[in-house]
């Protein structure tokens, strides 16, 4: 899922400062699960902002609403009226949610309340880790189900580099060496010889390097939209 975290409070404050009527829009999907922008976080942030501005002698009308998924039009349509009344929408969705609001409500000023961090999962309660870089050309079948693009600091395809020591990356002792993980798992599965093969340069065009990406599935499209 998409992992995000809330922006610093001061930055959020600055971004909505000129407005009086503020609508905080939470999202009920990924960012709810990672405790960054769900209904509860939206309520906490709205209350915090109300108090902060009131203490500054600039009380604002700050309300909140949470939609099931900010990244789909039909859920956004449900809050169109509230959005219409707000001078600024503070989105607690991921970057997709913010843009969906901007696109659906062309006359609305929208600002992000979160930094969208990565595609990952909770390793334990309160700890999230990156797992996928959305490179568009999955090679997990070659690397024992551990992604070197997302989990090697240098995204090596023929790792590990000389910076691997005691299982961790040279960048930071908190980062497990992705290639040590790959090696260990291939060894446990009796497939180390897969690493003897040279992996050719990656086609980064399938990744963001090829420009914004789009997928079209003709079999799923509605006839009138074609």
């Amino acid at each position, binding site marked *: 899922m998409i992992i995000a975290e809330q922006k610093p409070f001061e930055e959020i404050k600055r971004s909505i400062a000129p407005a009086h009527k503020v609508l905080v829009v939470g999202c009920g999907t990924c960012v709810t699960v990672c405790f960054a922008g769900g209904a509860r976080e939206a309520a906490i942030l709205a209350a915090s902002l109300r108090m902060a501005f009131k203490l500054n002698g600039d009380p604002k009308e700050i309300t909140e609403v949470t939609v099931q998924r900010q990244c789909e039009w039909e859920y956004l349509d449900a809050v169109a009226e509230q959005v219409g009344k707000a001078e600024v929408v503070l989105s607690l969705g991921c970057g997709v949610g913010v843009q969906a609001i901007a696109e659906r409500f062309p006359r609305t000023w929208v600002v992000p309340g979160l930094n969208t961090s990565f595609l990952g999962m909770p390793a334990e309660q309160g700890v999230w880790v990156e797992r996928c870089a959305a490179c568009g050309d999955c090679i997990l079948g070659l690397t024992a189900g551990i992604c070197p693009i997302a989990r090697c600091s240098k995204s*090596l*395809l*023929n790792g590990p580099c000389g910076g691997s020591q005691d299982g961790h990356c040279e960048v930071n002792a908190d980062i497990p060496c992705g290639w040590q993980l790959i090696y260990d798992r291939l060894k446990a599965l009796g497939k180390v010889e897969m690493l003897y093969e040279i992996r050719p340069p990656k086609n980064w065009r399938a990744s963001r390097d090829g420009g914004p990406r789009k997928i079209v599935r003709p079999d799923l499209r509605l006839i009138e939209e074609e």
Partner: protein
Amino acid sequence: MAQLTSSDGYLSGSNLERVLRAGHFAVTAELGPPQSADAEVIRRKAALLRGFCDAVNITDNQTAIVRMSSIGAGAILAREGLEPVIQVTCRDRNRLAIQSDLLGAYALGIRNVLCLTGDHQTFGNHPEAKNVFDLDSVQLIQMVKTLRDERTFQCGEPLRGTEPRFFIGAAESPFADPVEFRPYRLAKKIKAGANFIQTQLVFDVAAFELFMEKVRSLGLHQQAYILAGVGPLKSPAMAKYMKENVPGILIPDELIQKLEEAGKPWAGKSKDELTKEEKKARSEAWKQKGIEICVELIQRIMQIEGVAGVHIMAIEWEEAVEPIVKGAGLYPRPVVEPLPA
């Protein structure tokens, strides 16, 4: 070593290649370019190395700190009559930039290239930079080889005109993890096209012997020239720091003890109790011992089957190269004439 060679029988015809092919025990030294545009620094360092090595290895923004480019410094060195080995890392440039730089480097007279992945930029002085790592070191080696032997760009398009003919180097860290995989990773680099290998600093000769045993069993020493990385230790503190903080560096305690013994006359006194002169004398004693240890290491490494030379890394201490090379009996350096065309 069956390789596609040019008409003179060499891959690149570089001095390093000629020395190695002639069967001499090769010596290369390292030169760190300045954090400025001062060509005089290169000339000054070149003067310290002239005559004591077969080629000079120039770092490419080592530890991710901006310095004069390895190619720029290499071109100055070539004009000074020394032979550069330019390091090329994958951190700062993509496949377009690297190929273009290689064409330029060759045109400037550079004949050896060392292909590296590169230290991560978070170590350096621009930790907020976007890194590249479009290729990794193995793919970089392949690309340099393809340019040379197939006269083809990485994209598959033919290179018309003069192709860059480099003697291709790669690095290997014998003691980084996973240790048992390191000889196989070396094999990948050689399969990709590496002609010579420089290892990470070796201080633990016994561990290096084990590594070389595996290397020989894979026949790798017959497919590429392996140069062992060596370097003088400056002080016990530096040795301890490297041992604990630099991945892939093993330093036996006895070496650290030897250094400590060299500093014994000044032992038991705190920093503040020592006069400036005393500190200087102690530092000199450590350095002397560091050079002595380095000479001993080279002499032991020379006995290991499959080691074709040494690469001396005396970073910011180029003066140490002369006594090390002389002490190890590797002076004067051989002069190998090019093969007849």
